[in-house]
Structures are given as structure tokens and as C-alpha cells.
């Protein structure tokens, strides 16, 4: 580590990991002890009103979906606090803002001292909802697939003529930016472009839009694909976009940083690690209630790695079960090859790379003292 960018709110790390600030967990893990996740990435539903062409959720259908009710998520958060979860990101495989449990979830997490971040399209996130949650959030990242209304609507919805979704998102993002400023909130506001090679014409318009909106950052990241290339991502085509990406970064202003996740983009879809060590530190939970080590394994295809469902069993019991640790250990065993048996560039990628290098001795994780970066509890 650390590839960080200095924003007006503090040091922001998006293209690396933050394990150096959680050495108690790293040391316990290395000593063979069971550790609770520092971060959980999850969704409150698998539903979504968008239909983004790059969406990994299309490959994440489990054997059964269960409705997540408010009672479930309140218990879940209590259990997270019990096992030492410090941050929860509402990203995963659905649009959490659509859930009735969304606002109660964020308020209850805040009361427990658990940090919350949220990635959303922002379509159903008008002031009546956003103003309730913004004071309690660490970050909000809006998915903005393109910088122009027509391309945005084409990539995220039914076609270029449906620019009303772009207009709605922009209105809600602008409101959030103004609300943050007015109330001097600590929440970081960003927009994100998931870059497929065919979207390269939108790189510069996206960066300009980020500056125009006045968000804290605009990040451009790779697009994940499964090991069978269901989405057909050709990672060899990313290199031809490096110059455009450099130009986009150069558009950064004092207020808005344009950030490219170079590390993942340059990996070209193949990790350096064979074993997948990240999930015990950064667990993922599906909007179906499924608890699996990673979103890479939500589909029924990976049923052997499905540990439980928190809507019919308390998370604390799932976490304490032998099956939880057996699934995690399977990913650390020779039976599992991270280079061929899962999709590309999972959310645990940076953490897994760092832990693998640490164990191999090629690059040790070293404790960081001094000021902590923003969102330190989101690995």
C-alpha cells in the first residue's frame, strides 16, 4: 500500500487496501485464529430498477431467494457488532435503496458504531430518503455509467431515449452534494464508472460530469466477469484506453478528484494469487440473504461454498459454525484455484493480493501509525 489521493475531506484509498490499519486481525489470522470480518459487503435485496449491461448481479442468482425484512437486518447488525464487524458497504448484488429496511438498517448500524457506505444508482434516493441517511453515512458512491444522458440511459436502462433516469440521478446527486455542504457532513460523495472497452467514448465526458457535479471523486474501474466470460470482457482492450484514462485523471480539480483504479485495470483479469485469503476479512452477503465467502460464489454453481441464509438462521450462529470455517478453508486449500475457479477481480482482490504476498514473504503488511485514511473500516 498505499495508492491514495488527498481530497478536501482527507486521504482516500480506492486503488489499494487498508489492512495495515487492522493488524490485530492480520496477526490473529496469521496465528491460525478465527477472526470476524472487518468489513461486510452486502445488499438488502437482489432487486434493482436498472438493467446495467455490466452488472455482475446477472451472474449471481442463488438456488433460492428470501425476502429480507427489517427484523432480519436489525438482528444481523447486532450479530455484526458481536463478531467485530466495523464497516458495512451496501453494494453487492442489488439496489439496497429499494428495500424498506434501508433507512432502519443505516440508523441501527450508526447506533452500534458500525460505519456504512452505499453504492446506488440514486434513482429512488430523493431528499425524503437521502436526508434521513446522509448524516449517518461514511460514503455514497453513485453508479454513473456515462457522462452523456443518452449513453447513460442506453447502458443502464432500456435505451438512449430514456434520459429521464439520467435526469433523476443527477437531481438526486446534486441535492446530496448541496446537503452535505449545507450541513457540513463528513460523508464522502463519489460517482463511479464501470468501464467496459466499448464505453471508452464516455471516459472524458464522465470525468467532466464528476467535476460539474462537484462530488468529491469520480472513479473509473474495470468490469468484472465470471470465469466463463459471460459478459465477454476483453481485458486486452483496456491497454488501448490508458492514454484516455490519463487524460481523465488530469481533469481533477481541488474539489473533485478523478481516480482510475489502475491496479485492477492493469491486472487484466488474472490474479497473482492461487489461494483466496480475503473473505475472512471482507465477507459478502447476497440480497437473497445468502451468506457465502464472496459475491463471486453467489450463483447456484458454487453451492458447495454456500454457508447459510441469515433470514432463517442468526448470522452469529452461521459465523460460529464449522461450515463457515470449512468454506473459508476450502478457498485456502489446493482444491481451490483462484486463477481459474472464480470470476475476475473480486471485491476482495486487493486484500487477497496483500495477504498472499504477506504469507509468501514477498511483501509484508506493515502496521501504519499516524492519521488514518478515510473509510478505514472499508478494506
Amino acid at each position: 500500500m498505499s495508492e491514495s489521493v488527498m481530497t478536501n475531506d482527507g486521504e482516500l484509498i480506492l486503488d489499494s487496501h487498508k489492512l495495515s490499519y487492522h493488524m490485530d486481525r492480520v496477526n490473529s489470522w496469521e496465528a491460525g485464529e478465527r477472526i470476524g470480518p472487518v468489513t461486510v459487503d452486502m445488499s438488502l435485496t437482489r432487486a434493482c430498477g436498472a438493467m446495467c449491461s455490466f452488472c455482475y448481479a446477472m451472474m449471481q442468482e442463488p438456488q433460492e431467494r428470501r425476502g429480507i425484512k427489517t427484523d432480519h437486518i436489525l438482528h444481523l447488525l447486532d450479530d455484526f457488532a458481536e463478531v467485530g464487524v466495523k464497516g458495512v458497504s451496501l453494494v453487492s448484488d442489488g439496489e439496497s435503496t429499494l428495500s424498506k429496511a434501508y433507512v432502519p438498517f443505516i440508523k441501527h448500524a450508526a447506533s452500534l458504531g458500525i460505519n456504512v457506505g452505499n453504492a446506488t444508482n440514486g434513482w429512488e434516493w430523493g431528499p425524503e430518503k437521502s436526508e434521513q441517511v446522509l448524516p449517518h453515512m461514511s460514503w455514497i458512491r453513485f453508479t454513473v455509467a456515462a457522462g452523456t444522458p443518452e449513453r447513460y440511459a442506453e447502458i443502464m436502462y432500456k435505451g438512449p431515449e430514456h434520459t429521464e433516469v439520467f435526469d433523476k440521478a443527477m437531481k438526486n446527486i446534486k441535492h446530496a452534494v448541496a446537503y452535505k455542504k449545507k450541513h457540513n457532513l463528513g460523508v464522502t460523495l463519489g460517482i463511479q464508472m464501470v468501464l467496459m472497452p466499448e464505453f471508452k467514448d464516455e471516459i472524458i465526458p464522465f470525468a467532466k460530469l464528476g467535476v460539474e457535479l462537484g462530488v468529491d471523486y469520480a472513479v473509473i474501474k474495470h468490469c468484472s466477469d465470471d470465469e466463463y466470460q459471460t459478459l465477454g470482457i476483453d481485458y486486452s482492450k483496456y491497454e488501448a484506453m490508458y492514454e484516455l484514462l490519463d487524460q481523465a485523471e488530469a481533469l481533477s480539480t481541488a474539489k473533485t478528484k478523478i481516480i482510475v483504479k489502475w491496479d485492477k485495470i492493469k491486472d487484466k483479469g488474472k490474479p497473482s494469487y492461487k489461494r483466496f485469503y480475503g473473505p475472512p476479512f471482507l465477507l459478502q452477503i447476497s440480497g437473497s440473504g445468502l451468506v457465502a465467502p464472496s459475491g463471486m460464489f453467489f450463483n447456484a454453481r458454487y453451492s458447495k461454498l454456500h454457508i447459510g441464509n441469515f433470514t432463517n438462521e442468526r448470522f452469529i450462529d452461521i459465523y460460529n459454525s464449522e461450515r463457515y470455517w470449512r468454506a473459508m478453508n476450502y478457498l485456502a486449500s489446493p482444491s481451490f484455484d483462484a486463477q481459474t475457479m472464480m470470476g475476475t477481480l473480486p471485491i476482495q482482490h486487493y486484500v487477497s493480493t496483500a495477504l498472499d504476498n504477506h504469507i509468501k514473504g514477498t511483501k509484508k503488511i506493515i502496521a501504519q501509525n499516524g492519521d488514518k485514511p478515510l473509510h478505514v473500516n472499508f478494506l
Partner: protein
Amino acid sequence: MNKGINLSYSNIDTPSTGISWINMTKDKRILLLESSIQLFSTEVDISVIDANENGQVSIIINSSIEINDRGAFLLNLEENLKNTIDVGINIWHEAIGDKSSLRNLRGIEVLS
């Protein structure tokens, strides 16, 4: 205490399938797998739908099995097949496509 993660395999290659598995026809592999699965469990009905040279085996569970038991059952089954047939075997359930009618308008079919 060593109840957490075993970290001793970071440099170890995943085992490949052996010559006898590779030289078998796909039909023969499937028959062999089905008979081993029958011996492993008579209570859970499983169909083998593919068995590749590289050891990747696709199955379908036809019986109802609770999620709390399913994962461990399949890991036990895989371990058994590794021990009795070939160490390079990995089992995967047949993939399920997205149930979102809106996202399905994209026409993406989950490959396997």
C-alpha cells in the same frame, strides 16, 4: 490454537487429473461418478451432467436439501470423489440464470 485458516498452501499448485481420468470417455467418467455418488449417499438424488478432462464436474441436485446442509454435503462429496476417483475432481452445481425480468431484457445467458 489452529481453528482458523490453514495458510500452508499459498505456493502449492491445484492438483491436475491423472492419466486414467483423462483417457476415459466423458460417458465413462459420468457413469463412474454416478456410481460413486450412489455409494456416497442414497438419500440425495444427484445427476451428473458433465465431466471434463480437467476434472471440472457439473451436477444437479434433484432432491430438496437445506442450505445449512447443502454446502457441507457437497464439500464432503467432492472430497470423497477426490479420494476414490481422481484428486483433480472439482464439483460445481449447474448455474442458474438471473431471475430479474428487467435485467433479463439484456439477453445475457450465464455461461458454464
